[in-house]
């Protein structure tokens, strides 16, 4: 079986969970004997319009050295399309960022701690919707050149490409909802984005959601027929890294970490407020907010206002090894997301034996047992859970041990098996 997959990022060039998920999924599919043609936009702009090449070790830094796994990679082809599409950014924000980037480029000044991760070639339009259309155009022409059985599109930016490919080839389309516009923007959604999401799901033969939380949103808020919406929970790649490979925290006290984009969806405010409550009781605990986003300045201001700056640290955007390094220094990991379709970061933390507190409004809470679960808005509950894991060794020890075991069994190999089943279902449907 062969699948044409439209994504938007691929490790090691990642900005969030989607890239990591696609990486694991692709690998899992390869293990299940599925061949993948993976298409991603790339914002460099100086390469050929459609540079097609085979994935090799120099492109990906993760896990590729394993002799045993190398054979699977022969089943994956990786393609880049010259485009400025970037993940996790809405149309309005996109314009602002392009503008910012232009100004920064002329000023030649870069903030060292929070250097923007995004780079624009400046060659393409500043309008995200145009870019989406562009991607779709190239995607459909690409589809005619290759032979495959099913199309798989990840999130709204690639839906147009998926639909176009389906129209040109008549092959079944599976769309994968990793996040909905409601997760990103709350109730004040961008209606253009909503329309594309809905259109993609309507056109799809099957919709995969990453959790039942997301499945409900898709059914209730997009009016999609429940019969064709199937939940496949994300998984996580088991890590052979151990904590011993990393530096431990230089602080004598407990470290509590938030790691993710600092945006509305992730609930950073609740983390700050809970930190303040805990510090009233135990002023020795330290809190770290790792990541960047449009609420970063607001969070810094709030921390200063609460006068907890000596115990509350910001690291800026972390990637690769720095993320695991951060976990190695962490005693409790917190994900207070307001609406989290899945949320893979807690699994990465658990993998390194870090106890976690997660919000009930997350997909990941559907699959893990050994985590404390609270409502995101319940600051007292959040503070309680964090404090408990910091203070009571009996609980945190169990979470460390059992949590790791639990996560090690959430393999992409199994999740990808389910995705393969979905493909078969979709193919049968269109026959």
């Amino acid at each position, binding site marked *: 079986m062969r699948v044409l997959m439209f994504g938007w990022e691929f490790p090691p060039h990642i900005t969030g969970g989607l890239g990591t998920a696609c990486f694991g999924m692709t690998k899992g599919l390869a293990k299940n004997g599925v061949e993948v043609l993976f298409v991603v936009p790339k914002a460099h702009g100086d390469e050929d319009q459609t540079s097609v090449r085979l994935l090799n070790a120099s492109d990906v830094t993760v896990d590729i050295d394993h002799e045993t796994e190398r054979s699977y990679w022969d089943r994956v082809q990786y393609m880049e399309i010259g485009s400025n599409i970037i993940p996790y950014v809405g149309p309005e924000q996109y314009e602002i960022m392009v503008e910012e980037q232009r100004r920064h480029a002329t000023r030649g000044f870069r*903030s060292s701690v929070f250097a923007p991760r995004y780079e624009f070639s400046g060659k393409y339009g500043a309008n995200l919707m145009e870019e989406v259309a562009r991607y779709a155009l190239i995607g459909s022409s690409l589809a005619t050149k290759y032979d495959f059985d099913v199309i798989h599109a990840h999130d709204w930016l690639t839906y147009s490409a998926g639909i176009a490919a389906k129209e040109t080839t008549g092959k079944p389309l599976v769309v994968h909802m990793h996040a909905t516009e409601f997760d990103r923007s709350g109730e004040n959604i961008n209606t253009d984005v909503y329309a594309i999401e809905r259109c993609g799901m309507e056109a799809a033969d099957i919709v995969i959601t990453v959790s039942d939380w997301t499945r409900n949103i898709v059914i209730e808020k997009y009016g999609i027929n429940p019969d064709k919406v199937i939940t496949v929970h994300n998984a996580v790649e088991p890590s052979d890294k151990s904590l011993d490979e990393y530096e431990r925290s*230089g*602080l004598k006290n407990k470290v509590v970490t938030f790691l993710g984009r600092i945006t509305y969806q992730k609930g950073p405010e609740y983390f700050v407020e809970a930190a303040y409550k805990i510090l009233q009781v135990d002023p020795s605990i330290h809190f770290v907010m790792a990541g960047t986003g449009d609420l970063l300045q607001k969070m810094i201001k709030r921390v200063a206002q609460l*006068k907890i*700056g000596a115990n509350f*640290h*910001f690291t800026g955007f972390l990637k690769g090894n720095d993320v695991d390094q951060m976990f190695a220094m962490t005693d409790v990991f917190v994900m207070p997301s307001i609406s989290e379709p899945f949320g893979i970061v807690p699994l990465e933390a658990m993998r390194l034996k870090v106890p976690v507190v997660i919000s009930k409004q997350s997909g990941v809470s559907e699959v893990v047992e050994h985590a404390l679960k609270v409502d995101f808005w319940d600051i007292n509950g959040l503070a309680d859970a964090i404090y408990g894991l910091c203070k009571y060794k009996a609980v945190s020890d169990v979470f460390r041990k059992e949590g790791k075991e639990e996560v090690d069994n959430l393999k992409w190999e199994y999740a990808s098996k389910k995705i393969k089943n979905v493909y078969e279902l979709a193919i049968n449907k269109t026959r």
Partner: protein
Amino acid sequence: MRSLCFYFQVHQPYRLRTYRFFDIGKRHFYYDEYNNRIAMQRVAERCYLPMNQLFMKKIEQLGSKMKFAISFSGTAIEQMEVYAPYALESFKKLVATGNVEVLAETYSHSVSSLMNKDAFKMEVAEHKRLMKEIFNVRTKTFHNTELIYSNEIGADVAEMGFDLMLTEGAKHVLGWKSPNYLYVNAINPKMKVMLRNWKMSDEIALKFGNEKFNVDDFVNWLNSIPKEEEIVNIFIDYETFGEGKDASTGIFDFMNYLPEAVLKNTDFQFVTPHHIADKLQPTGVFDAPIPLSCRDEERDLSTWMGNDMQDDALATLYGCFKKVKASKDEELMRDWRALQASENFAAMCTKYPNGTPYDYYINYMNILTDFINRI
């Protein structure tokens, strides 16, 4: 004869390095050594050496008629010792002529006077000791960081044994009164207060080179001052010469011709602050119940305090003063002084364009966390 008093500030803070969360508890070196060295060597080359040379020449030519005052921050002296010892030698020679009064200030150019009286006292005492050690002088005239002053600070400084203090002739405090007189502190009348004539000081420091302004203009301006006004105080950052104002603006020529022109064409003579304060009678009270400074149009404290980040950083830093003092640890004391530099808090100010106050705050607090951990 009326009096013209020039005073120059020589200061360099320690610039801090990027200090990440991951460094806390592991690496205790906080400074950007490269940039500190570059900055010090650059200012020594462009300003300290040529300007000292110019003044040496003037003193040789004019003898005791050429007098002025300089204030050195402790952190500037420390960095000169390490990165530009030749500049320090040059200053020593200049002070040894006896025509230069060395002023007292806070060791680290800090805002301790606003935060903690004991910390303030310690800063002043350490600075006094350093001036004795380096220049073999006993300082008698105090000027606070960026001329920060209030009635209370003036009284605190009097308690430390000073009887003259320099501050800003701020319009909002002076009202109709002229800065060109000697005043006294509102709490302790034994403390005399000399005021900066900001109009002329800024004329030189900010406008020189941008607008037509030469020695004749300066002389004419002096002559236009009512005859009964007895003293004009021009306080300028020493760096203005060569750094703030590039040599190509003609600022060195300006300072070269100015002394003779003043002596020949006006009834002003050059004086040092303490010398003249002994001779003049104070004419009134300078009443500043609310602290003022010489910074920005507002002449207030908003450069260093008032926003949440500045207030958190300041409260955290001065909150550990007692423990630092009790530790009697020389390395801790050294870092304590560097971390106090007022520039750290000015960099967290959100009122200036092109700043990175949030980044600075985060970085500073990381360092502070490590520092507190060590105590």
